[in-house]
């Protein structure tokens, strides 16, 4: 049993975090629902291209009476904001910046306060940054839908929206440095390394990429390098450290034993910092870049096996003997699902950087499957797990229903599993067919992908169910409609009683 003073201190810290963190979580879930809507429509458009922009059926009676057959044509000018190009970019930005980044900031803020052992400093700064952040995303998505996308992948937001987001993030970064400088802890735990690094890395990446591509563009193919340096580092130096950092906190916290090895933590962190920022070039294999640039990034991508395996060993050895807890602890189940996905998706990513495999997988649905594997099965699941842990401590009440959590988990787990299978298998077949000059693109390859894309849309429906359920459950918590007694919510309370 921890000494009561520690519990009292944690209670104060949690309370100081309440408004800003709940604000970030709430807006994250809002953008998750928005992004899910964009995702579903985009996915359906891939196998039904006229979805939502279908021209009305011609009026045959009018035609027979002598009128024009196409009296009511649909104009792309009128429905441009409903087309695939804008919806896809809106989906990416809504989930990457709206959902994933907001959730990451919320979790990161809470983790920093907990691990620095100080009540949240300057809560107004954090909340203001949150408000600005949301304004930036709303403006940015409106800009994309209005056709003002920059058409640079991962940086589609028009420059005015990017500016707002950059300012908001800079405020968070300043806050993070301030928090860290005033820490009361005597030992800087590994999670804190990751969170602090992420809060520092992202504004650097975002500012550099915006300046070198949009404000003062560098020449020619160097823009492509900058673009993918940024695009991959958003994943590697922003989402990944927050996700791993959160797992490093939650796993030992929930099971109540120390993390396996400090040395593994250190090697994992520094090798990630060293290798990840080189990875972006593997998106440009076969592109017009000097061979050594691509080769260096392939080597760095394969070297990512080091931090991944080291971290996986560290987590696994910590969990050893406690896997039974997955049967009842919602937080642990989400987090461990995410941590295992991290290992798998990273090893898959390293293999995809190798030229001979990239030749098949690049520019196919296989890559899309990989992207969702990383951002959903790893990062989003870890964020869900963190929220299940953090929200009761901020709201002062327990989750209302184990049933809703179970529904959320299985909808998300099955949904993302089927999505990855559909995209991976479909993408492999597609890649092999594309490499065969005898195959007809429109006649054979496109129809071949159709069933896989329909399967992906169906799995997207499953994910959407999970999101709606979780958002509903979250709203109940914020409205103080959670349970006030009876202890924590477990999937399987009887087993939780038996086990310590």
């Amino acid at each position, binding site marked *: 049993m*921890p000494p009561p003073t520690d519990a009292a201190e944690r209670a104060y810290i949690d309370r100081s975090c309440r408004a800003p963190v709940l604000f970030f979580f709430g807006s994250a879930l809002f953008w998750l629902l928005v992004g899910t809507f964009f995702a579903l429509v985009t996915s359906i458009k891939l196998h039904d291209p006229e979805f939502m922009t279908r021209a009305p059926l011609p009026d045959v009676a009018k035609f027979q009476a002598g009128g024009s057959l196409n009296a009511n044509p649909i104009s792309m000018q009128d429905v441009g904001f409903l087309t695939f190009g804008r919806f896809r970019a809106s989906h990416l930005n809504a989930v990457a910046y709206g959902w994933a980044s907001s959730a990451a900031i919320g979790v990161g803020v809470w983790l920093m306060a907990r691990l620095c052992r100080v009540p949240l400093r300057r809560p107004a700064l954090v909340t203001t940054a949150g408000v600005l952040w949301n304004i930036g995303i709303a403006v940015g998505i409106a800009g994309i839908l209005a056709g003002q996308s920059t058409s640079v992948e991962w940086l589609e937001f028009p420059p005015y929206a990017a500016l707002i987001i950059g300012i908001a993030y800079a405020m968070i970064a300043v806050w993070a440095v301030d928090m860290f400088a005033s820490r009361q802890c005597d030992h800087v735990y590994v999670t804190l390394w990751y969170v602090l690094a992420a809060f520092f890395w992202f504004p650097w990446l975002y500012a550099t990429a915006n300046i070198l591509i949009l404000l003062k563009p560098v020449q020619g193919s160097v823009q492509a390098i900058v673009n993918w340096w940024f695009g991959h580092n958003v994943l590697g130096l922003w989402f990944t450290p927050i996700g791993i950092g959160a797992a490093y906190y939650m796993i030992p*916290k929930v099971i109540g034993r*120390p993390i396996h090895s400090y*040395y593994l933590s250190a090697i994992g962190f520094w090798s990630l910092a060293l290798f990840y920022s080189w990875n972006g070039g593997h998106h440009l294999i076969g592109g017009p870049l000097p061979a*050594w640039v691509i*080769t260096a990034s392939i080597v760095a991508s394969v070297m990512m096996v080091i931090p991944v*395996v080291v971290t996986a060993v560290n987590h696994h050895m910590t969990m050893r003997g406690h896997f039974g807890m997955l049967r009842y602890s919602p937080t642990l189940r989400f987090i461990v699902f995410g941590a295992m996905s991290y290992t798998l998706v990273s090893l898959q990513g390293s293999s995809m950087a190798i030229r001979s495999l990239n030749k098949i997988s690049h520019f196919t649905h296989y890559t899309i499957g990989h992207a969702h594997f990383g951002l959903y099965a790893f990062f989003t699941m870890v964020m869900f797990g963190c929220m299940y842990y953090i929200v009761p401590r901020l709201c002062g009440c327990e989750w209302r229903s184990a049933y809703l959590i179970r529904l959320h988990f299985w909808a998300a787990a099955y949904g993302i599993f089927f999505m990855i299978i559909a995209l991976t298998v479909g993408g492999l077949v597609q890649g092999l067919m594309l490499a065969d000059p005898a195959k*007809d693109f429109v006649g054979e390859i496109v129809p071949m992908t159709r069933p896989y894309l329909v399967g992906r849309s169906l799995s997207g429906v499953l994910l959407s169910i999970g999101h709606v359920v979780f958002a509903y459950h979250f709203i109940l918590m914020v409205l103080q409609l959670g349970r006030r007694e009876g202890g924590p919510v477990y999937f399987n309370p009887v087993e939780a009683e038996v086990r310590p």
Partner: protein
Amino acid sequence: MADDLRPPPEAHDIDPTLPGVDYSERVSVTGIHAAVLREKIEPREGMEPMPIWLWLAVSLLIGWGGWYLGTFSGGYRADNFDERIGSAIAGGAVAGTAAGGTAAKEDPAAAFAKLGKRQFTANCQSCHQATGLGQAGVYPPLAGSEYVLGNKKRVIAIVLKGLQGPFKVKGNTYNNVMQSWEPVLDDKKIAAILTYVRNEWGNKAEPITPEEVAAVRAEFASRKVAWTEADLLAIPENATINVAPATNATPPAAAPSAPTPAAPAPPVPAPKAPSPAAIAPQAPADRPYT
């Protein structure tokens, strides 16, 4: 320690009737801290050493990384885009390595035929149709066309420069325009398309090589307008194409690994009578780039 950290009580902490959101104070004090009290202690770190097998695996990986970087970095040159070339050299001549290795796996003739069909579908079919019959009165047929089956130089010239009607094919006159494909398609694609067209729909004629297309392209390089019927017929029925092998060799990889000084020869005028040796080893016009 916690005492030092406590913030000064806020107004609504002291008087619950004052405005301010404080959800947790509505229930018992133990209720507030229930979640916090049941928490396990904050995470700490164990000090287990890194396992030996992991050290070994990491060392192996780093070794592989060094080898790969050294082998496939193209000599770290800014102008070398092909990782399979020239890692052993530092500047100067670029030696071809293993270039033919991957290309040899597929039968080049079959690949050439596939390329022709695909390129025809992509570029020609919308007018001349998959049947090769064209459209009556609008687009002339290719099946059985005297130009398709006739002199090589003429048919290559048509594809390169395009046509300006009126133009007579198989007894029918077509008053239409065919675009110039010179800027769009390279020699290999044009050769593949023409070879396909000359041997499809019952057509039977000699194949056309990329070298021949290149030669015709060079011969008419100065012509900027489409052919009229009269201009085209000015090319004699029995005209031959002088293939100049030296100019066809595309830069680095075509050179065999032995240093052949002649390989990257600039526009040296081709020898008038090509020796059999110069023609025999067909210079690969390009290599599949992955």
